[in-house]
Structure formats: C-alpha cells, structure tokens
C-alpha cells in the first residue's frame, strides 16, 4: 500500500464508536477513498469538545486525520449530513444501523471502495427522505454485487438452463437460482416466489430510488427480506447483530 501523507482528509460515514479512557473515543469511519479506518478522537466526550457532534455514529462528516504512532488521530471534523429526520424515526434508525453494520462486517481496513461508499450514502439519503425497508433490500443486494457475491438470477446457476416462471430454489451455497433438475446438488436453500425473483433481477439494474419506488406488497417484501438474509448469512457466516433489532422494532405495535 502506498504511504499515506502525514495528515490526510477523508469524507465518510461514522460507523461506530468505542470509548477509550475518560474522554476519548475510537471511531470507525467508512470513506470512499481511504476505505474503512479507525482513528482516535481525543477529548471528544467532554462537553466542550469541538468535534463531538461531528463524530457521532451515523453522521456523514469531513475529517482531517493525522497519522499517529499507533492509531491515527482526528484533528478536525465537520458534519456533511447529520441525518436528522432519519434519527428521529425508530424504524429508519434501525434500518440505517443495519446497513452500517453490514459495511463494517463486509469490509477490511484501508481498502478503497468508492462505489460502496456512494451506495451507502444513497441508502442513508433515501432513509432520511422517509423511505423504509426497501432501501435496505436494494443496499444489501448491491453490496453483495459490489463485493463479488452477486447471486446468479438469470437461469440456473448450476446448468445454465433457462428457468420457467414458477417458484424456484435460491441456494446461497450454489450462488443463485437453481432449476428443478439440479436441486439435489444445490446444497440447500429456500424456495422463492416469482415476484421475489423479479425483484432480485430488478435490483441489478435499478437505482436505489427506482427500486424503492416499486413498493412491493408486504408479503413479497417479507419473503425478499428472508431470501436476502440467507445470502448475507451465508457470506458473513453469521447474522448481523442489528437484524434482531430491525425485526424487534417492526414487530412492536405502531399507533402513530
């Protein structure tokens, strides 16, 4: 890797924070050009800290970072977007946290991923604009594609045969849809309905905004959520922690 300058700029989304000592925090930032990185914000937990609000998780910020002996150090931070409306919605916050966790779990430090960064910012912008879980579905599917895990949804992934328009096996292990004849070799999976297959195909070419505008019926959205969850679990080898929270929140009775 090329040596970074002693002081560098980055624009990114704060993914997470962990506290260090009495007043410091270590923040994980996901930026387009530096990729994911950690740096320390000194004194950021003091009421008078200048950087405090600019380095909150789920904030898009421009930062100036100085290379340190062990950890790099934030020297300046300025909010680009605090996602204020998003934070004031429990559902949108849950979706956003889930997206942040996906980014954190699927990336390694200092690998520049400008397309994934753009995808994340678009997803957060759409959540900020009042959209719901469909944003996350598009985000998950495109994230998988950008990282090389795109499920094969044109024909059978094993034999290449065209698929009739009927419910089909989606096999994370095989890497996509599997025809009836190949099912035995697919290594398990989930039978998905035709509308789910169509949504997965649509997500490949649709922008996030176009995908969200499609407004799938709740039972289709639910099935797509489970199908994509299978893919994510297969590639991460676990469920993201925030998934439980998203589900818990949407299960709570709503009256507003």
């Amino acid at each position, binding site marked *: 890797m090329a040596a970074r300058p002693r002081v560098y700029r980055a624009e990114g989304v704060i*993914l997470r924070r962990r506290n260090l*000592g009495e007043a410091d925090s270590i923040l994980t930032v996901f930026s387009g050009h530096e990729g994911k990185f950690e740096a320390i914000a000194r004194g950021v937990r003091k009421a*008078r800290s200048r950087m405090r609000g600019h380095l909150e998780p789920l904030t898009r910020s421009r930062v100036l970072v100085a290379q340190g002996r062990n950890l790099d150090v934030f020297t300046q931070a300025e909010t680009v977007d605090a996602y204020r409306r998003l*934070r004031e919605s429990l559902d949108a916050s849950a979706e956003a946290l889930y997206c*942040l966790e996906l980014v954190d779990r699927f990336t390694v430090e200092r690998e520049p991923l400008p397309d994934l960064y753009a995808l994340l910012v678009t997803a957060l912008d759409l959540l900020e604009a009042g959209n719901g879980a469909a944003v996350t579905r598009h985000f998950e599917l495109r994230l998988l594609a950008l990282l090389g895990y795109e499920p094969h949804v044109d024909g059978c992934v094993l034999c290449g045969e065209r698929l009739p328009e009927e419910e089909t096996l989606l096999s994370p292990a095989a890497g996509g849809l599997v025809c009836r004849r190949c099912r035995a070799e697919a290594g398990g999976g989930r039978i998905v309905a035709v509308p789910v297959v169509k949504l997965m195909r649509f997500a490949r070419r649709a922008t996030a905004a176009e995908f969200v505008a499609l407004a799938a019926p709740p039972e289709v959205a639910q099935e797509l959520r489970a199908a994509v969850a299978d893919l994510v679990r297969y590639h991460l080898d676990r469920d*993201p922690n925030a998934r439980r929270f998203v589900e818990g929140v949407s299960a709570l009775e709503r009256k507003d």
Partner: protein
Amino acid sequence: MPEAGAPEPIARLIQEFSKLPGIGPKSAQRLAYHVLRAPEDDARALARALTDVKEHVVLCDTCFNITVRNPCTLCDDEQRDRSLVCVVEQPLDVLVVERTGGFRGLYHVLHGSLNPIDGVGPEQLRIQELLRRVEGGGVVEVIMATNPSLEGEATSMYVQRLLQPLGIRVTRLARGLPSGADIEYMDDLTLSRALEGRQEL
C-alpha cells in the same frame, strides 16, 4: 503489563488495577506502589471497601438503581411523586438529576442504551421491567433522560413505542447547547435542535 522484576503480589495488584477503566499500565503501576507505601490501615480500608461494594450493594427491585437497601431510599420516600418516572441510562445519572434538585418523581435505571450493532438489544437492558412497572399502574408520565446520542435516542424512541399502547405520556429532555460550548464549532444537529427549543428572553 506487570514489570518483569516486580514481586508476584505487586505484579498481581498492577494487573488488577490495569483492568479498571481509564487506567493504563503506567497508572496501574503508580497505584500499586502507592498502596505498597501507604499505611497498613489505608490498604485494609481499601480492601474492605472493595469487597463491601460487591457484598452489600444490590439493585433496587423497583427502579434498578444501586442501593444498600431494597426498595431504595428514593423509591421508599413517600414525599416523592409516584406518577412521574424519569428513565436514565446509568445509576450515576440518577445522582446527576438529583443534584439539580428540580425533580421530585421516581427513577428507572436501564443500565445502558440500545446499541444494536454491538449486540445490545432491549433484552440486555431493564426495559421489560420498566414496561411491567408502568403496567402496574399509577404512572402518568415517563420522562426519557437518556443521552442525546444515537444510542440514547434509539432507546428513547423504542421505549416510547413500547409504552404507547398503555396511553402513558412519554416525554424526553429538551436538547439545547452544552454550557461552555462554542457556537462556531457546534454541529448542525445540536444547533438546529437548540434553535427549535429556543425560549423567550
């Protein structure tokens, strides 16, 4: 890291001190040698205080604040307004609100805030206990005094939605500028919320 040359009991003490939050290896070493030099009585008092805190301090069955008697003195105080419950993240926050002298209701300590990414969900906090307490009757208003952080806000909104079906009034603290802060460096979120909460001069 215990010094290679330090005798075993000191090395052990250094190791224990360095487990404390905010104590690095250097500070742990300083503390350990301080204890070593201190009078015997001081060291014994420290040891007793450490074991007492684990033996005699419990959580109040009602508000989950730390206490030496159950129910705690706050919950037991007949003078306090039982219809108001102020929900805080940590036991220390109770002391802070009490210090203002401006609140005469009761408390509920959650012992943390929701942090879904780190796996801290509602089950890890005293949220079900709050629900049961409110369902028990007599509570008119729940005041969410969680931190104005992402985690604190999520916790407030979650509790609000959970309590909504009970017809309880759920409020949260107004969010203004921290005193001593500098407007020039204030982030947009804090500033715009403070603007909304502006008051007549």
